[in-house]
C-alpha cells in the first residue's frame, strides 16, 4: 500500500535511499571515526577538515536529512503494515525480516538521539565536534551501551538491507545467488560491527 505515490515509486525510492545515501553515510561514519584509532589530535584534525566542506548545511539537508526522513517515515509505516509471525514460522529469513523491523525502530530512536546531541544541540550551543566531545559521552558506561546498541542495530539494518535491496531491484534472482549474497551480508555485518565497536572503544578512551 502506498503512502504517497500509490506504490511503486515510493517503495523503490525507499529501498534506494537505504543504500544511497543513508548506507553510504553510515560507511562514512565508520571511516571518519576510525581516525580516532590514531589518537585524539589526528581525529580532531580530520574532523575539522570535514567541517570545512563548502555548503555543508544545504548538503546535509539535501543528501542526509531529507532522504533519512523519507526512509524513516515510510519505513515506520511499512513496519506497521507487517504482522510478524516468527513464533509460528521459524524460518531463517523470517527471523531476518523480523529483525529488520526491530532494528529499524532501534536505529530510528538512536539516530534521533544521536542527531540531536551530536549535531543539532551541539551546533545550537556553538560547540565544535571533537574527540573530547565524543569522549565525554562515551566514557559514561550507559551512553557507551546506547551507542553500541545503536551501532549494531544500524549495521544490521544496513547489511540485511543490502540483501533485500538486491532482490527488490532484481539483482539476485535465484536461490544460489541469494545465498551467496546472504553470506556476504553476514560477513559485512560482523566486519562493520567489529570495526565500529573498536572505534567506540577508542573514542571512549
Amino acid at each position, binding site marked *: *500500500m*502506498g503512502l504517497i505515490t*500509490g*506504490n*511503486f*515509486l515510493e*517503495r*523503490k525510492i525507499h*529501498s534506494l535511499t537505504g543504500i544511497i545515501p543513508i548506507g553510504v553515510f553510515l560507511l562514512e561514519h565508520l571511516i571518519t571515526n576510525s581516525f580516532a584509532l590514531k589518537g585524539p589530535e589526528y581525529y580532531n584534525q580530520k574532523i575539522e577538515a570535514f567541517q570545512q566542506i563548502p555548503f555543508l548545511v544545504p548538503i546535509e539537508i539535501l543528501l542526509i536529512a531529507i532522504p533519512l526522513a523519507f526512509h524513516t517515515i515510510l519505513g515506520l509505516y*511499512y513496519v*506497521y*503494515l*507487517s*504482522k*510478524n*509471525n516468527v513464533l*509460528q*514460522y521459524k*524460518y531463517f*529469513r*523470517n527471523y*531476518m*525480516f*523480523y529483525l529488520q523491523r526491530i532494528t529499524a525502530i532501534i536505529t530510528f530512536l538512536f539516530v534521533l538521539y544521536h542527531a540531536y546531541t551530536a549535531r543539532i544541540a551541539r551546533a545550537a550551543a556553538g560547540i565544535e565536534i571533537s574527540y573530547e566531545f565524543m569522549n565525554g559521552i562515551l566514557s559514561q558506561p550507559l551512553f557507551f551501551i546506547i551507542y553500541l546498541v545503536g551501532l549494531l542495530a544500524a549495521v544490521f539494518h544496513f547489511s540485511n538491507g543490502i*540483501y*533485500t535491496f538486491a*532482490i*527488490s*531491484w*532484481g*539483482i*539476485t*534472482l*535465484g*536461490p544460489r545467488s*541469494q545465498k551467496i549474497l546472504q553470506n556476504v551480508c553476514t560477513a559485512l555485518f560482523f566486519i562493520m560491527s567489529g570495526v565500529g565497536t573498536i572505534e567506540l572503544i577508542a573514542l571512549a578512551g
Partner: protein
Amino acid sequence: MPDSIHLKIKRQNGSRDLPRWEEFKVPYKPNMNVLSVLMEIRKNPVNVNGEKTTPVVWDCSCLEEVCGACTMVINGNVRQACSALIDKLPQPITLQPLSKFPVVRDLKVDRAVLFEHLKKVKAWVNIDGTFDLGPGPRVPERERRWMYEISRCMTCGCCYEACPNFNSRSKFIGPAPLAQVLRFNKHPIGAMTQEERMETIMGEGGITDCGNAQNCIEACPKKIPLTTAIAQLNRDTTIHGIRSWFRK
C-alpha cells in the same frame, strides 16, 4: 504405538461467532491422515467428554494434495490436511482454520479473495477464441519446465497464510498471483499483453509490497519458485518503469 489419536479442533459456527476448542479422541489405525481422522469423527460425533456434538465442517476434494481445498493450520503450520500423516505428527494435534481469511464454519474458510487477485492481475493468456487456429507457438523445453513449475500452483493459500505482509492492514495481492504474472508474461502469446499485468503489479498492493521475508517459498507445498519469480518481476518492473518514464 498410541491406541488413540488426540485432536484439538478450533470450532466456530460462523465468522461472527466466538471460536472455541473442542477435543476428540479417535481410535488409532496405521497410515491415517488428518482428513481420515475427521471422517472417523463424523461417523460418531462425540467429543472427548463423551458429549454428542456436530460433525466438524471442513473443505476437501481430491485427497491427494492437488486441489488445495483442505488447507488448514495443523500444529501451528499451514498445510494440506490430506497429506498430514498422523504417524508423523506430535499429539495432541491442533487444527485451526486459516487465519487470514474469513471463517465460514469450523475449519472451512472463504478464500474467494485468492481468485479475485488472479482476476486482478489478468492471469490468463488472452486468446481470441477456442476455435482451431492450428498449433500454438513452439516453446523450448527448458523454458517450459520452469513455467510448468509455476503453473502447478493450486491457489491453496499457504503462501498467503505464512506471508507477514499479507494481512488485514495491507493490500498486498500476495505471492501466488505474482508468480502467475511472470509465467504469463514469459509465455509467447501471454507476453503480448504483459504491459497490462506489469502496470497492475506496479500499482497499489503490488510487487513492492513484498518484504522479502521469503516465508512463501518455505510454506508452498509444491515448492513453486516464488521468490525467484518475485525477484525476476522486480527486475522486469524496474526496467519497465524506467523505460516507460523515459517514453513519457
